[in-house]
């Protein structure tokens, strides 16, 4: 019986290291960052309490407003496009055809490929100095002078960021949706077909509702990836030109570590966390029911 009693303590102790680290990974940074956002801390200091001064300061900063809008556009656009394209990929490769496994592996490759390296390749692809995309556009006489993808002041730099993000992460949605599709089973599809359902009806009323868990998980993971993206913005545009593609995580990095103003940088990072958690809670609530 001794082993049973020992067993209880062992059971209780098993999650200890992970819980310690998880608590450390969330409570310590959240708490300290909250403090930073309420202080005048510089790099390497704790700083003094200044109340909500940093947040008040941000309210009047056009750069911050721009980063807010950009983060929202970037997040919503990438998630929507990835969900639609991922669905298209999943539907296309759900059926048997020769070479399917290879296609499957290739389509998922951008997702495991290091984001920084993939973005570097895109930077060169989009370059207006001998970049492939401009070369193709100019050769085909579609756009005789080429397009300034990353440096113009219009919507093109943001569109480029979204493109790279979509290229990188569509595979995730595709794989999740494909797993969902396969779990539906052919009998249900066949019986709906035999009952006279059209393809559209079949998709909207049979397939889509069953794919909801997969869509929600994909959206939650994509929300984290897009909302928290730093690498693509940093490598592709560095927030430029003139903050046109600045996002919240990248702005927090720039303000806190480039300018050394940890207090304001902390406020930038913390300010959007409630919104993030609300979006996340909304998503996850739909799957729990």
């Amino acid at each position, binding site marked *: 019986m001794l*082993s049973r009693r020992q067993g209880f303590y062992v059971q209780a102790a098993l*999650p200890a*290291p*992970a819980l310690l680290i*998880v608590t450390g*990974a*969330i409570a310590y*940074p959240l*708490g*300290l960052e909250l403090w*930073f956002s309420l202080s005048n801390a510089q790099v*390497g200091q*704790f700083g003094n309490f200044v109340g909500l001064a940093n947040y008040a300061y941000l309210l009047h900063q056009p750069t911050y407003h721009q980063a807010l809008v950009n983060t929202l556009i970037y997040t919503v656009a990438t998630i929507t496009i990835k969900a639609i394209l991922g669905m*298209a*990929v999943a539907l*296309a490769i759900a*059926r*048997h*055809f020769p070479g399917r496994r290879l*296609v499957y*592996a290739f*389509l*998922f*490759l*951008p997702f*495991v*490929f*290091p984001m*920084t*390296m993939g973005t*570097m390749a*895109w930077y*060169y692809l989009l370059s207006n100095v*001998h970049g*492939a995309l401009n070369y193709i556009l100019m050769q085909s006489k579609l756009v005789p002078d080429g397009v300034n993808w990353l440096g113009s002041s219009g919507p093109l730099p943001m569109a480029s960021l979204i493109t790279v993000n979509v*290229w990188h992460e569509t595979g*995730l949605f595709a*794989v999740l949706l*494909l797993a*969902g599709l*396969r*779990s539906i*089973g*052919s*009998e249900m599809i*066949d019986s709906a077909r035999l009952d006279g359902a059209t393809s559209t009806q079949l998709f909207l009323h049979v397939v889509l509702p069953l794919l*909801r868990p*997969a869509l*929600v998980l994909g959206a939650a993971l994509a929300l*984290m990836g897009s909302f928290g*993206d730093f*690498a693509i913005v940093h490598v592709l545009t560095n927030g430029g030109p003139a903050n046109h593609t600045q996002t*919240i*995580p990248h702005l*927090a*990095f720039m303000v806190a*570590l480039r300018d050394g103003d940890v207090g304001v*940088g902390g406020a930038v990072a913390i300010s*959007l966390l409630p919104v993030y958690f609300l979006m*996340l809670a909304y998503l996850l609530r739909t799957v729990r029911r």
Partner: protein
Amino acid sequence: MAIQDPPRPSSPLVPRRGTREPSPRPRGHEIGDTTFGRWMRIYVPVLLMLLVALFPFYWMLITSFKSPSELLDFSQSPLFVIKPTLEHYRHLFTQTNFARWTLNTAVVAVASTLISLLCSILAGYSLARLRYPGASAIGWGVFVTYLVPPTLLFLPLVLLIRELHLFNNLWSLILTYPTFLIPFSTWLLIGYFKSIPRELEESALMDGATRVQALLRIIAPLAFPGILSAAMFAFTLSWNEFLYSLIFMNDTIAKTIPVGVTSELIRGDDFFWGELMAASLLGSLPVALLYSFFVDRFVAGMTAGAVKG
């Protein structure tokens, strides 16, 4: 007390998710399929998708083989390489610290993966199996923690690493990567552990095995596919990590591949595209190889939560 060998199932007991019953019709043809319909619905979209997904890789490959003069020759099409050369690959190893960055990345990725796995297996098992108050709340908390973007919480870690004097030290990464690896792999493993029938270990416990023995000898072998998935994801995430490494590693010889490549192969406005693309390909080779051998594990790991929700 001597313990009987645990019963070894002859067939895997973990139900294989994502497999579909073979259809009685010819391979893959659904009711109402025509050849034209298959082309429009499968082959054309798939070829287009492949083109977009793979073109950047083609671009990296040809750029890495171009000679410097070819890279600067604007009269020639950039889409092909005329005289391939390995010059840039040689440069990486003779003129830059690429070999050292690779070593750093490998050490950090292996160490942080091992630490994270050890913690996650224990925690995942405990949260999936044992009935104690709050287990499901903790499991939920682990998932939410995993979903908090690390890019929003790096400032406190900067202070911590500064206090510990770990700047430019690989330990700074080995200690911080588990903060996002553990929540993820624990969440993934909880799902796997839950899919293993309880009766298996209960009979072992009846026979006098302790929990730890049950975990090591019955559960761990059965959950091995899940553990492999978690290991590969953790390894890939650490290998590819950018922000923490960018902040903590400033010395040339302390950098990891993503940071070294994007900082040292660009001088001001000079991009050394040949070396950059060669390094991007070589630097992701371990991840790509791992992926090509175990693509099913990757996918199974990613989709573990997708079907059941």
